[in-house]
């Protein structure tokens, strides 16, 4: 018996000595990475690290006020595209730098235009990287965005940007994280997208969507049209659609529930028919005086339907012209077609006929008539 207990104790002791340990106070965990492309396959890479030292804000972990005992918070270096920043910056680390929990990855516009294939292959291979990582394209310089110290919030910029993007993903912006990006990146007949963010003075802001052609930035959707994109992309429950029904006169539809449904006919023909049915249940709060009332609701709904449908058609025509497929229409056609002809799809995609039917139900128009 004693021998058996000894074996157990010995196992525990020996097992603990098996591999090196990483104590959280003694390492720098990279939370955000930014890549600025400067031409000739060279990038400026920036990383930021939160501090897990005792801070002014009790219990705030690294999120509190930086105290005098804090470690270095950001590093930046020029290197070739695809170099692991953790490896490259190790020589500048105060203590060991590690990629334990990367939250945010930023690329500037030239980087996105140059292509992210090297970065994505690296990200997909690295087991240390979580899949809920937030990706974004930065309008401006990633280095400036990450290294800036003039933000209103004291929370590290990595969490600030991630929080902002994630809360917007529940609103007008479609879900976008590493897993959904890689889904579309590796999947056939679809292309990925990311949100665009920008540093504006002392805060960050969302600037629309960046649509990719496989790994290269192909086009941008402005912030005002992102609702239409999301409506075609997924079912969702929040968000606001602003319609200018006459110059200078706006009605804003606050979404309660949107559901989208695709049907495809003649999937293997030269010009497949794609039928989209969208049901929007919404409410109106903000409207031009006199434009809405209980009586006028159906009328307003018709205007909304027309506006949404024409916006949707315009958007799809644009992406069809560019030959990109962020809405994953090709995949929908595949799922509706036996023995789908994938080889000729890129050509047929341009000629696909897109039919869009939107029905809007305005649930309520506020507390005044």
């Amino acid at each position, binding site marked *: 018996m004693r021998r058996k207990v000894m074996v157990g104790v*010995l196992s525990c002791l020996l097992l603990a000595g098996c591999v090196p340990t990483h104590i959280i106070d003694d390492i720098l965990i990279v939370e955000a990475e930014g890549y600025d492309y400067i031409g000739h396959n060279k990038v400026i890479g920036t990383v930021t690290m939160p501090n897990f030292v005792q801070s002014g804000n009790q219990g705030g972990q690294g999120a509190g006020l930086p105290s005098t005992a804090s470690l270095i918070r950001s590093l930046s270096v020029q290197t070739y595209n695809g170099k692991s920043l953790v490896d490259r910056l190790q020589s500048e680390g105060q203590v060991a730098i590690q990629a334990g929990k990367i939250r945010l990855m930023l690329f500037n516009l030239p980087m996105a235009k140059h292509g992210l294939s090297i970065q994505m292959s690296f990200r997909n291979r690295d087991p240390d990287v979580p899949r809920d990582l937030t990706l974004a394209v930065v309008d401006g310089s990633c280095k400036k965005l990450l290294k800036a110290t003039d933000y209103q919030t004291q929370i590290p910029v990595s969490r600030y940007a991630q929080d902002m993007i994630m809360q917007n993903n529940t609103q007008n912006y479609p879900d976008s994280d590493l897993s959904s990006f890689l889904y579309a990146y590796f999947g056939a007949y679809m292309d990925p997208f990311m949100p665009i963010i920008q540093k504006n003075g002392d805060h960050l802001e969302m600037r629309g969507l960046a649509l990719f052609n496989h790994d290269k930035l192909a086009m941008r959707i402005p912030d005002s049209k992102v609702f239409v994109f999301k409506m075609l992309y997924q079912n969702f429950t929040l968000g606001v659609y602003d319609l200018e029904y006459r110059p200078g006169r706006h009605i804003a539809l606050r979404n309660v529930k949107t559901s989208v449904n695709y049907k495809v006919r003649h999937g293997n023909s030269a010009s497949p028919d794609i039928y989209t049915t969208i049901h929007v249940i919404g409410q109106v709060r903000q409207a031009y005086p006199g434009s809405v009332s209980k009586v006028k609701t159906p009328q307003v709904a018709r205007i909304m339907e027309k506006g949404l449908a024409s916006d949707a058609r315009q958007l799809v025509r644009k992406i069809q012209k560019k030959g990109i497929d962020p809405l994953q229409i090709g995949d929908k056609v595949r799922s509706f077609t*036996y023995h789908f002809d994938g080889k000729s799809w890129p050509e047929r995609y341009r000629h696909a006929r897109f039919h869009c039917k939107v029905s809007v139900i305005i649930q309520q128009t506020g507390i005044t008539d």
Partner: protein
Amino acid sequence: MMAKANPINDTHKAGPMAVFFLTQTMQIAIEFVFIQQLVTKDSQQDAWIAVLLGGLSTFPVMWLILRLLEKERRYGQADLFSIQRRIFGKLIGSMLNLIVSIYVFLYSVTYLRSLIELLQVEIFPQLSTLVFSVLFCLIVWYIVMGGFRNIVGVSLINFIYLLPLFLSNVFVVPHAHFSNLLPIMEHRPQQIFLSFFMNTHVYVGFEFILFYYPFIKKPEEAKKWAYFSLLTTLYIYLIFIILGIVYYSQGEVQKTIWPTLTFWKSIKFPFFEHVDIIFSIILLWSLIPLVSLCSWVLTRGIKFTFPKIKKKYSLIAILILTIVTAYLIRDGQQVMMLTRLFNIIGFIAIYCYIPLLFLCQWLKNLFTGETA
């Protein structure tokens, strides 16, 4: 007969429900972590059909096994080693016993090495195969020395520990693309059969009842637990393959070595990060009863062939051999080759050899005039 003269003491036997946990342990080790990549290779979105067929095909095999064992009970000890010796005679029987022992040995080494590979890639690159397998085998030694009932107990704990891993599938629902499952039955039967072949090794393991059947009390009642366990396994694998298909696009799932593990990386809780690492460590648990049962079966085999060698000594020899073999497998490429090899052997074992054995037993009984 010698085996008859040495019946198993009731205090060493386990209840009929043990069959459920042991079958679960042997079938669900760590395959659910990588099943998706292997199976979707040939039949893409129809892979779940292959998995369903694979699971259903285990039922008739289980029926054959139970029938074989029941018939054998009147002739002596109803385990595979005795059966083979009785049917094929001493020489051929012993050779077959040796082959079966190699199969069991391969079973434990394949899984042990796959897990070490997973841990090395995902969490601890510095983890030494040798040191880890030595420590692992110490735990196994401790459990096997405790006897059969001890292994059943560890299997029960393993079943409970794996539950959160299966429940984690809930997190896939918000990200699921159910249209990925369409169009259904697009692939030719040959392609689905190829997938069916590739997923054989995820279902093997239930045939271990051939070895521990004499240790089950009231074997008639154990039948339903055996079938129930197969049903549970089928359900779990079906869920995991559907997870792989709806969460990943086909291009991605075929690039990912451990799709389930990669999926765990996207699970997020406010209070702790890296669920995937916690779950990978829990996976370790599923291997302890598996390697224990395999080693136990091997000691039984040695005791059957050479009754003079004590379990104490044979177990140490087996574990040393396990450690050495695991250590000799150097990298992921060799682990993959081993898994492939094991897949073929498993296919032959359950779909060819067991029906053949059933047939031989029937013929033997026919010729010796003892009809059932």
